[in-house]
């Protein structure tokens, strides 16, 4: 019997801050102290605390420690474990909201609700037993023994769940397109090619709760009549790939993947396919091309993947976060799900809060929360007493929000009205030390790098935009450059082949709309923020 459980966050963020060494020291010191039988050290997913070094929580006391270094381990053991005294200098009190079931008295703190992230940071993601103990695979069991495929699909439709990859297309409706196709094979693909800058929600779901994805995919397979699933994960996400593979192996061993699952006639299996480094492969048809072993260039649509997808067969491509919602919708019902969020945007949304923010990280909030609540309540505002300049929501192609939007409810319809979208859920906060023109140049450099080169609009358009911006940020711009950029950007929106080229101009046009003065100043050789190295032109130098 273990007296203590120490859950140490072992995710990509904490590992980048030395979590492995701390965990090794913990295990070693506990063993030396003869406490190995009394204290269990569990590697868990994200604990929801970021940028604060290595973090851990000790149960049953539910005490969080942050910024733990190898040299602190001995003190935690001698004080907390042996004497029951909290090590105050490492004690972290600003804990995120969680359904902490180990200690029922722990209150829910703040404005966060955990549906998708309910297990991340509270179970050992490498243990199928711990997932099952939290009602894991119960939805799948119930669906296969008590529900028809149509009923499963109906429940997802009624829930109003919209795709969390960025397009917010109703998931149940998408499934319906594939379900009515007649085919010898159909496929379910989990899109885990998370490459949108500032986005790491899928990474932390895959690292922290991989079984929820397997269960969601199996339910999708049952609903549309597919027997094979693929998880397409970015090649750079090594830990996600490892945890997912381990989860698949465990599910197979326990009969939760394979033939005749739960004694039903339903067969379903999952394979991982790794990406090889291409942002465009997050686009679903490019992703399919990549699984087919080709260059990840998008396909012409229609036909859409639910009719003609992988190897020409009906295919559903769903985002990681979308799939992580499915089992809970089946288990708790569509009306429970509709009780969260707003009427037109039910459920929660996982955001990644990044940029110039005091408390960055992964948060899960009900749809409809305001930007102000996220930036100032959950994110604790902007460091160094700087002012809020702008926020970009949804990744590099996301719309621009300014201080006038701070009280805008973040839901699909209200954002659309403001010319923005939720996209991937990345929320980049930018403080007033930054230069807008320099920032836009950074966005465009990204598009130049990530354009697949297929269509002229995106390949050449972004290239020319970069040239114009480079002129502005070096003091060589002229007054006509701004109109030229606007013209080019709006032409790209209309003429580019796929979503990347069409969306790339969104933040550029947004910045031009709200910060036009700053662009004009650059044509006059002035950078408000002093970031751009303005070289005086020959004329001015002579004068």
């Amino acid at each position: 019997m273990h007296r203590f459980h120490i859950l140490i966050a072992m995710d990509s963020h904490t590992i980048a801050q030395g979590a492995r060494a701390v965990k090794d020291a913990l295990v070693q010191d506990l063993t030396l102290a003869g406490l190995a039988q009394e204290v269990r050290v569990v590697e868990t997913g994200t604990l929801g605390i970021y940028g604060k070094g290595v973090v851990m929580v000790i149960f049953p006391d539910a005490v969080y420690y942050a910024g733990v270094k190898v040299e602190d381990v001995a003190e935690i053991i001698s004080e907390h474990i042996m004497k029951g005294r909290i090590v105050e200098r490492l004690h972290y009190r600003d804990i995120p909201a969680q359904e902490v079931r180990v200690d029922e008295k722990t209150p829910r703190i703040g404005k966060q609700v955990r549906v998708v992230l309910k297990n991340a940071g509270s179970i050992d993601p490498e243990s199928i037993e711990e997932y099952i103990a939290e009602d894991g695979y119960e939805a799948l069991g119930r669906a296969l023994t008590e529900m028809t495929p149509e009923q499963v699909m109906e429940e997802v439709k009624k829930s109003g769940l919209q795709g969390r990859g960025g397009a917010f297309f109703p998931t149940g409706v998408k499934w319906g397109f594939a379900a009515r196709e007649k085919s010898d094979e159909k496929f379910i693909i989990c899109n885990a090619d998370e490459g949108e800058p500032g986005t790491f929600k899928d990474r932390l779901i895959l690292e922290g709760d991989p079984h929820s994805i397997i269960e969601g995919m199996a339910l999708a397979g049952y609903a549309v009549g597919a027997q094979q699933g693929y998880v397409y994960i970015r090649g750079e996400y090594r830990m996600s790939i490892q945890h997912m593979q381990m989860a698949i192996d465990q599910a197979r061993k326990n009969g939760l993947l394979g033939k005749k699952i739960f004694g039903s006639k339903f067969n379903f299996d999952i394979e991982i396919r790794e990406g090889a480094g291409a942002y465009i492969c997050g686009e679903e048809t490019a992703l399919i091309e990549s699984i087919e072993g080709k260059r990840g260039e998008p396909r012409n649509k229609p036909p859409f993947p639910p009719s003609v997808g992988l190897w020409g067969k009906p295919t559903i491509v769903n985002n990681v976060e979308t799939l992580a919602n499915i089992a809970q919708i089946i288990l708790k019902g569509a009306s429970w799900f509709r009780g969260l969020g707003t009427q037109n945007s039910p459920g929660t949304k996982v955001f990644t809060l990044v940029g110039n923010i005091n408390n960055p990280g992964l948060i899960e909030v009900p749809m409809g929360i305001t930007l102000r609540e996220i930036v100032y309540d959950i994110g604790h505002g902007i460091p160094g007493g700087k002012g809020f300049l702008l926020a970009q929501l949804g990744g590099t192609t996301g719309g621009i929000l300014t201080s006038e939007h701070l009280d805008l409810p973040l839901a699909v319809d209200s954002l659309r009205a403001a010319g923005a979208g939720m996209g991937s859920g990345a929320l980049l906060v930018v403080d007033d030390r930054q230069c807008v023109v320099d920032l836009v140049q950074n966005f465009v450099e990204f598009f130049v790098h990530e354009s697949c080169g297929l269509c002229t609009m995106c390949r050449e358009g972004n290239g020319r935009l970069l040239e114009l911006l480079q002129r502005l940020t070096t003091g060589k711009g002229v007054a006509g450059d701004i109109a030229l950029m606007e013209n080019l950007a709006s032409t790209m929106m209309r003429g580019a082949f796929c979503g990347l080229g069409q969306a790339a101009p969104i933040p550029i046009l947004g910045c031009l709309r709200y910060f036009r003065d700053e662009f004009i100043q650059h044509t006059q050789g002035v950078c408000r923020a002093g970031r751009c190295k303005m070289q005086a032109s020959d004329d001015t130098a002579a004068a």
Partner: protein
Amino acid sequence: MPNLNKVDTIVKSYENMRTPLIYILKDVQNEFGHLSEEVLTQVAKTTRIPLSEIYGVATFYSLFTVKSKGKHIIRCCNNAPCHVNGSNEVLDKIKTYLGIEVGETTADGEFTLEYTSCLGVCAVAPVLMVNEEIYGNLTPEKAVAILKDYKMKGSVHA
């Protein structure tokens, strides 16, 4: 002269996988260090996929390389979340320290410097990756200290 029989073994190990070209190229690159023309020609022969198509794939994805690289590959992120947290200053310092530009390899063959797309650890921005290890909350000085460690020990972990 690379041992091209290894290519055949790798291709054969994927005979049960549908459309495995990307997996084959990954293994082949691991084996030979980079995807040279000679090696890709052998992949084309064994898989019966046209060389032009294989070359197209090998040059499309950023994790593949058709040129040889240094012992340690430094991948710096300069996407917006890192950018607003000072990644340019980090990169400039690394360039000065190594005396190379992005895309180049040091004369001693130790380091290749590249950009990476977002590594998904933006809450500890700015970040960089050396080989498979990620380092966060960087300052220019910290970045140089990390590279010094690699230089001294060949390989080191935080």
